[in-house]
């Protein structure tokens, strides 16, 4: 084996000097540790985020994203609840597995916003006032279980202070079917020759007794509070023959600030015909309009 030759004492000295220099720098300047440390620092961003603190970070992110997702779900539920436009929709939209929670205010808004007496038949306003007198009703929980809907009035601890049980059949009652549609009367299936101006309709309405008035028309406050201006009234037969056999549909058209809407009200045939005959008398004084009494779509009607 051949060893490298040292060329004179200068070479030896140089080598020793180099080593001495390295050890000197290492001893006083920690050149090795700093070199490695700085090299690692330089390529820090290229390395993976491994280890306990990164794992904890990941867990934190995971936990927060779970919370975020729960919050999103609750927020969208809240938005859906806020968007409920009518007392009837609120009850109709209930799914058995998804109870609905409404604030007291929202519930009362919907309750009193119904264009008719149906909501007050479902829950008496006196019952509400009695619940309210306990001063601990903050929210309402609506649950559907089979054919039953439970309306629970909750205290701040979510304990029901009062519960009302409602059969889903009640949603199908004629009184419950007052609905609102966007658009003009014609778009809701009302024919032009059966559409009358508000000026013709309202005087006739005023002549009716209060009970009949409420069967034909909502509390005027419903229009006034919302800033709806009554324009026309139409009459047509029910779209589905089986829905309301002995009923006609009154369409009350109104103008809102940015849209036109129609409130659809099923009216018993007798009342409807009575009103229409009065309108005819009024109209007959006007040239060019004629009126025909309507019959119920069901065949057994006399």
């Amino acid at each position, binding site marked *: 084996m051949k060893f490298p*030759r040292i060329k004179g004492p200068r070479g030896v000295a140089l080598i020793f000097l180099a080593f001495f220099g390295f050890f000197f720098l290492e001893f006083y300047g920690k050149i090795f*540790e700093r070199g490695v440390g700085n090299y690692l*620092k330089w390529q820090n961003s290229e*390395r993976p985020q*491994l280890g306990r603190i990164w794992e904890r970070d990941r867990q934190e992110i*995971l936990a927060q994203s779970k919370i975020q997702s729960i919050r999103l779900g609750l927020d969208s539920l809240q938005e859906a609840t806020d968007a409920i436009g009518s007392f009837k929709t609120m009850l109709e939209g209930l799914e058995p597995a998804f109870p609905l929670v409404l604030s007291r205010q929202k519930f009362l808004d919907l309750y009193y916003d119904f264009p008719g007496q149906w909501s007050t038949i479902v829950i008496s306003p006196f019952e509400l006032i009695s619940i309210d007198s306990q001063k601990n009703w903050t929210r309402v929980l609506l*649950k559907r279980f089979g054919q039953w809907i439970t309306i629970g009035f909750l205290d701040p601890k979510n304990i029901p202070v009062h519960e009302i049980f409602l059969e889903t059949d009640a949603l199908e009652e004629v009184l419950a079917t007052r609905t609102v549609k966007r658009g003009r009367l014609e778009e809701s299936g009302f024919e032009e020759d059966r559409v009358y101006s508000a000026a013709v309709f309202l005087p006739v309405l005023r002549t009716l007794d209060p009970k009949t008035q409420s069967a034909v028309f909502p509390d005027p406050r419903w229009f006034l509070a919302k800033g709806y201006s009554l324009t026309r009234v139409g009459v047509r037969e029910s779209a589905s023959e089986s829905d309301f056999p002995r009923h006609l549909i009154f369409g009350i058209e109104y103008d809102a600030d940015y849209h036109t809407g129609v409130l659809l009200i099923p009216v018993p045939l007798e009342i409807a015909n009575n009103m229409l005959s009065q309108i005819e008398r009024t109209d007959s004084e006007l040239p060019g309009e004629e009126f025909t009494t309507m019959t119920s779509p069901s065949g057994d009607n006399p």
Partner: protein
Amino acid sequence: MIRRLGERIIFIFYTLTLLGLLGGAGIYFVFSRDLPQLPDSLENINLSLPTEIYSADGERIKVRGQRYPVSLEDISPNFLKAIMAVEDSNFYEHSGLDHLALVRALYTNVSQRQIRQGGSTITQQLSKNLFFSFERNWVRKIKELLVALQLEATFSKEQILEAYCNQIYFGSGAYGIEEAAQVYFHKRAKKLTLLQAALLAGLPNSPNNANPFNNYERSTRRAEYVLERMVKEQFLSQEKKEEALDSLLELASPKENDDPNLYFVNFVIDRLEQNYGKEFVRFGGIKVFTTLDTRLQRSAQKAARSHLKTLERKIKPRNVNIPLQAALVAIENQSGAVRVMLGGGSYSHSQFNRAISDNRPSGSSFKPFVYLTAMEKLGYTPATTLRDEPILVDIPGTEPWEPKNFSDEYAGDIILKKAMMRSANSVSVKLIQEVTPRRVIKTARLFGITSQLGNHLSLALGTSGVSPLELASAYSMIANLGVYNKPYFIQRIEDFEGNPIYENFYHGIQRFPQKSIYPLLDMMRGVVDGGTGNIVRRMGFKHPAAGKTGTTNNSKDAWFNGFTKDFSVSVWVGYDDNEPMIVRSGRGLTGGGAAAPIWVLFMKKVLQGKNRVKFPVPEGIKFEKVDARSGTLPDEQSVETMNVALKEEVIIPPRVLELEKTQLGQASVNSTTTSELVDVVSNP
């Protein structure tokens, strides 16, 4: 010659240097791929949002994941010197690697052929704490060193020391110097005296063994060693050291880990982790508002401990030192909120939660479900007569079963209410024979009992294991006249900003008609007022209450499950090793003697200062006085009469009709519905 020797030395030197460089480079390239990235800052590494758990009465009962990081200025210089003296005396000189310490550790480890010393600098320890497992091996040591070198190159010495002080574990659940100072001395880290600082500096090396709460002697010896090191490293003069050793340590008393709330709290945490995942609870920073009433929980523990102590004195001494245990669950009937959950006599001695995890046979506490099934399915009433007598049940393939009454005494003809009050086993077995165990299981399931129940006749005597939580919940349904409220523990959960992310809503379900449940409730009132649970009255509990005792074979388990209008409480007493509870006289303990007194002591506290509230009587219920033996209307032959609650349609016949009925060969069922009675009358 000298030249050749020199050449050889230089060759070897070259070779070794080259090998060293190649080896170093090889090690680097092998391990650098797995090296973790360092964070941009060390300031926030200790911070995560703590999860807080609150009781129903507003007390913050548990905080998880809270850290108390402090800056170097807020740490006593005594501690900083002490920790450096004992862990890394060259901290300010090295760049992550202390050569001398490493050589010393290498020598020790190689000579002892195992890793005994780390020789780690503070930076290396921080590196280990932040990124690596606590497993000791060479690979991890090398990676730890490389990360330490980078830490040194990236952060200042002060930043590293501060992060280290806030990160290390000091035992007793204390992470970081601030928390350690609070736990051990009830003071801020900047206020630590020299001796206190030395003691704490000695802990990270051996946080459990040198813990002053566990081993005071060892911890003070370690503190002395730390002071010695400080003198040696010239951080301290000899005189100061002597002064420190003469000073008072002022060690705080250990934090009592006997918090009875922890049974409840840990159960809630387990449930949350099951439902949402561990990270949700540990790192979610959530606020959990529970149903626990800490005042009642303390009362429950006090009641259990006090009576267990009395029982221990009465019980025959045993060879093994296993303490008598108790479990108690209290549920608010109206809502189903679990207000108390006591899993054992003392949390510090045993963390096992007997209230939910230890399903033990319920004994006669199960009988109400048998009686209700019989009343619902067979049309029996509390006035129905059965014969309490020794019976022999043929079981195909095995020896006949001979269930006996507790005291082996039999009452003969007896109405069901009386049988329930006496807890007659033979009557219960006869009932289950008639209705079948399958039907009883169905009833129990409707009461919310989810534990496995044996489909056999002995179920009538409560041979299947159930938990106190299940029984409290099931009895709560009786108190609610058939409305089942699922027991719940969490009222609300909020995220760290206070937004609700979960709310519990009441969901009561009427599972049995009220007038079916009330007669059972009335029978159970009889148990408390004049039956096996009469100790409740003898101990001066005056509120209207109902319940049922339970004692299993050889007195291995003692139960009392009872309720008032507002609360249902289940109490279990027994040994963990399932041994009998025998008193010195040789008699076994019963549910009435072992469990009911705990119930009374607890309920007295719960209802202290509250009005006595009667159970509401539902519509369709009437009360009748009947002969306790024949179940007929009382007459001059009646020896004992009893008031029973009956459904309105039930008619109690006079004794003469009963005789006629017997002549007609009808069964011993003597209380009949109106139509049945008409039959009897019209067909004499």
